[in-house]
């Protein structure tokens, strides 16, 4: 067990492509840290650099306080679980799991004992003498995990270990991984592109985008206080809604209606306009017609007719509901905004990654999560309520959360 420190680590490929750009991250001993981001964001490269499978272009990587930049993977004492599992097809499960110990020239009875212990934990005892080809996907995945835990290494590195499983098994294995990590208490770095896995598994989550770490924090922090539009849009399902807004005479004008900012928001807006952006907006504080992006989580909408929101301060508005999905526990209402959704480069990338970029309607819609008691019906106009105190305000040029930039 050990802590892992990435100190301004950069990976630049020979062709000049920047895969990881100045990543700094301190992973404490025993911590479960998730690297999450869309494909091509550099998360796997980061993991490979920790493993020693890829060279570090600049910066320092320390495991257990020791700089390991130039150490070969075998000298780093870390175990890795691959997306493809990478089981050795010509060896039995027993040999697969004991391979690392055999390479380390440990005595045979010790290897056997450790392999059998791990097999028991992972419920693989009866498969020990089979070959990987004879196992199911879930069993192979467990063998891959077993191969890692047999060695009791300093750290586990997992590269999308669950993405080849079907949905049901994935959820099951997710809890399994979580339990295993709790039990072993081994420092774990886990790479995934699935924000649900990131939110449910990690002690802390690092969100990456095009080689840069956007934000590191606990799942709750990322959810409630996203530093950038990207993090806000990436974490959470359904994703946060982004609505364009302009500031006019102290009010936020949005397609949903005018929002009077509360004290916190006014403070943020004042701080923002009082900062370097004043010159961009062209002078006078209150007179500026400046635009920003308002982020709203789907659950901060509610059916205005419900008892729970009656009399509560917030924005009430009437919009046609295009689609209503009733899930039993709650309902998702999809409404189209007159002005359309906010468009900024970061969001385009997210949409691109999700494959929704070309959908004609998807990008213009706002999703509202409503209580199951809601009487709203599809195709009709509905009165909705928005909890304006929970708004996130983003700078449209930098994508930064005004809250975070004010704090920094």
């Amino acid at each position, binding site marked *: 067990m050990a802590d892992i420190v990435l100190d301004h680590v950069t990976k630049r490929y020979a062709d000049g492509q920047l895969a990881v750009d100045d990543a700094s991250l301190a992973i404490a001993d025993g911590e479960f840290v998730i690297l999450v981001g869309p494909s091509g964001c550099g998360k796997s490269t980061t993991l490979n650099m920790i493993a020693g499978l890829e060279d570090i272009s600049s910066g320092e990587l320390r495991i257990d306080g020791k700089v390991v930049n130039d150490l070969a993977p*075998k000298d780093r004492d870390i175990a890795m679980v*691959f997306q493809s599992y990478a089981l050795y097809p010509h060896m039995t499960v027993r040999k697969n799991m004991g391979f690392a110990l055999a390479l380390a020239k440990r005595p045979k009875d010790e290897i056997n004992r450790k392999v059998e212990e791990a097999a028991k934990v992972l419920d693989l005892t009866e498969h020990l003498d089979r070959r990987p080809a004879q196992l199911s996907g879930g069993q192979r995945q467990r063998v891959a995990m077993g191969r890692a835990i047999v060695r009791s290494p300093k750290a586990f590195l997992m590269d999308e270990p669950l993405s080849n499983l079907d949905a049901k098994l994935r959820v099951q294995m997710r809890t399994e991984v979580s339990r295993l990590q709790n039990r072993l208490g081994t420092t774990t770095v886990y790479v995934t592109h699935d924000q649900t896995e990131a939110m449910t598994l990690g002690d802390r989550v690092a969100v990456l985008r095009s080689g840069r770490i956007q934000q590191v924090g606990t799942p709750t922090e990322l959810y409630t206080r996203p530093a950038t539009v990207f993090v806000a849009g990436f974490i959470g399902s359904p994703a946060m809604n982004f609505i364009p807004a302009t500031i006019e005479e102290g009010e936020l004008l949005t397609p949903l209606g005018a929002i009077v900012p509360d004290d916190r928001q006014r403070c943020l807006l004042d701080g923002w306009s009082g900062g370097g952006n004043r010159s961009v907006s062209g002078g006078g504080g209150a007179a500026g017609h400046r635009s920003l992006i308002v982020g709203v989580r789907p659950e901060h909408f509610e059916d205005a007719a419900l008892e729970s929101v009656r009399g509560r301060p917030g924005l009430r508005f009437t919009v046609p509901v295009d689609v209503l999905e009733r899930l039993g526990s709650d309902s998702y209402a999809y409404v189209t905004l007159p002005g359309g959704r906010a468009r900024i480069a970061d969001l385009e990338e997210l949409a691109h990654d999700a494959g929704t970029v070309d959908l004609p309607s998807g990008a213009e819609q706002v999703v509202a999560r409503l209580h199951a008691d809601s009487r709203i019906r599809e195709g009709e106009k509905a009165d909705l309520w928005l909890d304006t105190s929970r708004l996130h305000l983003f700078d449209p040029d930098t994508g930064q959360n005004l809250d975070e930039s004010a704090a920094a």
Partner: protein
Amino acid sequence: MATIASTSRARRPAGRDRTAMLGWSAANLVIVAVSLIPLLWLVSLSFKTPDTITDGRFIPRSWTVENYRGIFTESLFTRALLNSLGIAVISTVLAVGLGAMAAYAIARLEFPGKKLLVGLALLIAMFPQVSLVSPLFNLWRQIGIFDTWIGLIIPYLTFSLPLAIYTLSAFFREIPWDLEKAAQVDGATPAQAFLRVIAPLAAPGMVTTAILVFIFCWNDFLFSISLTSTERSRTVPAAIAFFTGASQFAQPIGSIAAAAVVITIPIIIFVLLFQRRIVAGLTSGAVKG
């Protein structure tokens, strides 16, 4: 052919189907006959007595194993058989060993000059062997390896290494890279990763390559006849040309036939045992190499 036959069976009435089958069978028979008759003729000749050898009958009137007994008592043949075996085996081991390393690098690494190396290998494979014979003859005599095993092993390697590299790199490319990464993380040195993970998985490819290289070396006549002068290193295909009859005027046809049959046997055994693999190896080398 099987698929053609089955689709035609599905579409055509039974009568025409039978005609088609007969047609195919006849065509196959002709091809098999054309390719087998010379070989069978050779076998037949090898069992004939010297006085019936020119009688033109396919089935010998009187059978004899004298020809076989004859060649195995002559050092010309037995020594050549030993040479053939030794030279072919050494060449094969070297070609597969060196070829595996080169192919592994080609399949896995990006290094400067990689394209050049692959292109060069292809170029050598296409190089007309006969044009090398006289320079090698002179060179080998100058440096003193004319009529030695090594003198034959070197040109065999020259022409079998490209073949080995092409076939093996196709096999290595099929092996997922993650396996090596896993081995490295498990604590293997690159050499251990290669020997304990990659090589066992590439074993079918290695066997295929070994067989192809062995057959190439075993069958070679050109280099053997040109670069050897005595029994010391002459291989069987060349040695056969030096067979003499019982007297000055008798043709050694029976002995030649027997020797030809004997050296064909290992090849036949190989091909029968590894038929599938050889075809797979040839096509994977051809398509993906």
